[in-house]
């Protein structure tokens, strides 16, 4: 019944009508075909996995592997990072909570047992897995890359097919370096034109999620295209792909180009010498051919996107900062009305109030969405010469980002503004390391999820860009950063 086709070598797709013509193919399809080991009649495909990234949360998968007595098939393709549980203040004593300390210790033991390279607590390259792997050049165009973390979609910014998996699948990849997948559908999101001043990748992706919904891309790989996307630097492309999962998407993809190659060149694990040239020649073919067809298409005008924030408890509750909190009573459908009302109630808001009337108790600038050097430069640009009026934490995405920021003097800008400048890790994004927003407190956050209790029990999260979070730090309320110059 199975194993209808095997492939290590690609055969180009030929058009059924005119066999000499090659059928236009999507970027996704090209990567998929290059990694197909076995394809079964029932549509399941065994894919080869080029990179497997782990973090402390992988302990369930290592436990499962240990119970089966299997080894890690390719420890040389597996890399581990301590990020979710690491302390962001005083690291000299490690983590104080014994359960949290155990998570960090288990990652060390499991990786040592299997010969997996660990970027642990004391490593100069420690940091959030989705920030560090690209920095080290582990993420490259055309690869398949998985991690037991939903924001693995981040790595699609390089034109890699990258997606999050659960613990059972992590143990499968550890044991076999492969994964069964059903072919996803494809969605192309084209963003035309140019983004306006102070409008960033975060605003762009929040606008996309608001348009298609938190499950709008379920079952799809999303390729981002168009002038506005091509103009983005790598950090911003990572922000876009990172939040693809918040639209329910399986993976995000952006075709690699000179921006990608320039960014990657010379990084530690990137190809060197003749291999680099061969790689770039190959990578230039990683584009969706003209005329390639997608299962769905969505188009947005980049110039019409405003700084965007969320008011509710799903990333789809995103609105331009100039807008108001919706009134659930205006919603006709009873189910949707109840969902909106519950979100307004949880968030402690008044229906119809202007978004800019929402005061915040604290600001968090961090996470794999928005804590790269570019993000910190933007936040520092807003905070320079100003004071934060509410408690503000700045947590760099990696130890390398932290060093770079300090070289540029950004740390001084944050400290002079009264913000806390901390050690790298996931920190308050998911509150797993103990950095939490207090119950009922409202946080302006550069993270990716405003779910109930995401940043701590009873915490209220408003997602926004680093520029907008910095503006909120200055005024103590949600503020249109474009107007800050006039109001400050």
């Amino acid at each position, binding site marked *: 019944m199975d*194993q209808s086709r095997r*492939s*290590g*070598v690609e055969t180009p797709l030929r058009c059924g009508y005119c066999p000499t013509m090659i059928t236009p193919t999507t970027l996704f399809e090209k990567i998929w075909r290059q990694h197909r*080991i*076995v394809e*079964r009649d*029932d*549509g*399941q495909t*065994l894919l080869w996995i*080029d990179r497997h990234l782990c973090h402390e949360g992988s302990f*369930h998968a290592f*436990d499962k592997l240990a119970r089966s007595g299997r080894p890690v098939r390719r420890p*040389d393709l597996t*890399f581990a990072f301590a990020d979710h*549980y690491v302390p962001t203040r005083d690291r000299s004593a490690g983590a104080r909570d014994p*359960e949290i300390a155990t*998570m960090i210790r288990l990652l060390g033991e499991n990786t040592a047992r299997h010969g997996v390279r660990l970027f642990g607590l004391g490593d100069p390259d420690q940091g959030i897995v989705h920030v560090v792997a690209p920095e080290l050049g582990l993420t*490259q165009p055309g*690869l398949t890359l998985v991690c037991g*973390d*939903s924001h693995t979609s981040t790595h699609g910014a390089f034109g890699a097919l990258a997606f999050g*998996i*659960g613990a*059972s699948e992590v*143990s*499968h990849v550890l*044991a*076999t370096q*492969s994964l*069964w997948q059903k072919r996803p559908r494809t969605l192309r999101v084209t963003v035309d034109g140019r983004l306006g001043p102070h409008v960033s990748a975060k605003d762009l992706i929040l606008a996309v999620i608001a348009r298609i919904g*938190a*499950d709008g891309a*379920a079952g799809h790989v999303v390729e981002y295209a168009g002038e506005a996307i091509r103009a983005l630097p790598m950090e911003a492309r990572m922000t876009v792909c990172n939040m693809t*999962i918040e639209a*329910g998407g399986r993976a995000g993809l952006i075709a690699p180009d000179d921006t990608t190659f320039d960014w990657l060149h010379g990084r*530690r*694990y*990137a190809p*060197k010498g003749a*291999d680099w040239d*061969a790689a770039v020649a*190959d990578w230039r073919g990683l584009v969706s051919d003209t005329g390639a067809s997608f299962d769905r298409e969505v188009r947005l005008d980049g110039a019409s996107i405003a700084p965007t924030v969320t008011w509710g408890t*799903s990333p789809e509750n995103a609105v331009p900062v100039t807008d108001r909190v919706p009134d659930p009573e205006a919603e006709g459908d009873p*189910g*949707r009305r*109840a*969902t909106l009302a*519950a979100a307004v109630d949880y968030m402690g808001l008044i229906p119809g109030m202007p978004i800019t009337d929402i005061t915040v108790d604290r600001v968090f600038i961090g996470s794999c969405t928005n804590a790269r050097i570019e993000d910190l430069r933007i936040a520092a640009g807003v905070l320079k010469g100003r004071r934060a009026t509410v408690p503000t934490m700045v947590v760099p995405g990696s130890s390398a980002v932290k060093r770079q920021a300090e070289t540029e003097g950004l740390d001084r800008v944050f400290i002079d503004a009264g913000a806390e400048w901390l050690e790298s890790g996931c920190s308050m994004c*998911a*509150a*797993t390391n103990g950095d939490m927003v207090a*119950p009922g407190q409202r946080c302006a956050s550069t993270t990716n*999820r405003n*779910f*109930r*209790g*995401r940043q701590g*029990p009873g915490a209220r999260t408003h997602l926004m860009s680093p520029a907008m979070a910095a503006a909120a730090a200055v005024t103590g309320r949600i503020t249109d950063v474009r107007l800050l110059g006039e109001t400050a």
Partner: protein
Amino acid sequence: MTPFTTLTAPAIPLRLANVDTDQLLPGRFLRKPRSDGYDNYLFHDIRRGRDGTLRADFPLNDPCYADAPILVADRNFGGGSSREGAVYALVDRGIRAVIAPSFGDIFYSNATKNGLLPIRLPIDIVERIWAIAEADPSAPLTIDLAAQTVRLANAEPVRFEIDAFQRACLLEGRDDIDLTLAHADAISSFETSDRASRRWRAPSA
């Protein structure tokens, strides 16, 4: 894992959309060993009011539904994080099937690897199940995985779609690593030919 074949049992109506994995299992419990059991962490925060007491209006706190193994929710159930602990929490509470109009992709896949059957059904059918389960908490639903049907009370069975591979794994309670290792030769030959044709893919430090 426990195979899933058929189940005739009452359902818990959960009229909520976007029940994300942080609500199913808050992040701070992810560090708990599985051997402790995850049932106490299921919906830990949304089951409770601001003062920490269990909310009477949350269906999973209602003693009428204490033994019901089927959960019926609104769209985008299990969206968000890849944490398989969200599935462990449901399984450890005794939930065997979740019905919703749509699911988070990773949650859906995690569920099928732990004997938890996710069933996609259109919202109008979900609404009918809610109404029945609210009117009579002991009213049984019958799920037949081999036939891919759900039958409510005396109505005609409704068909649902599930991938053939995932269905077979659930029906047999089978570990897919064993199945994959049957393809060990194909994996090895892919590995060799790919290494030869795209040398740059190996991480070179």
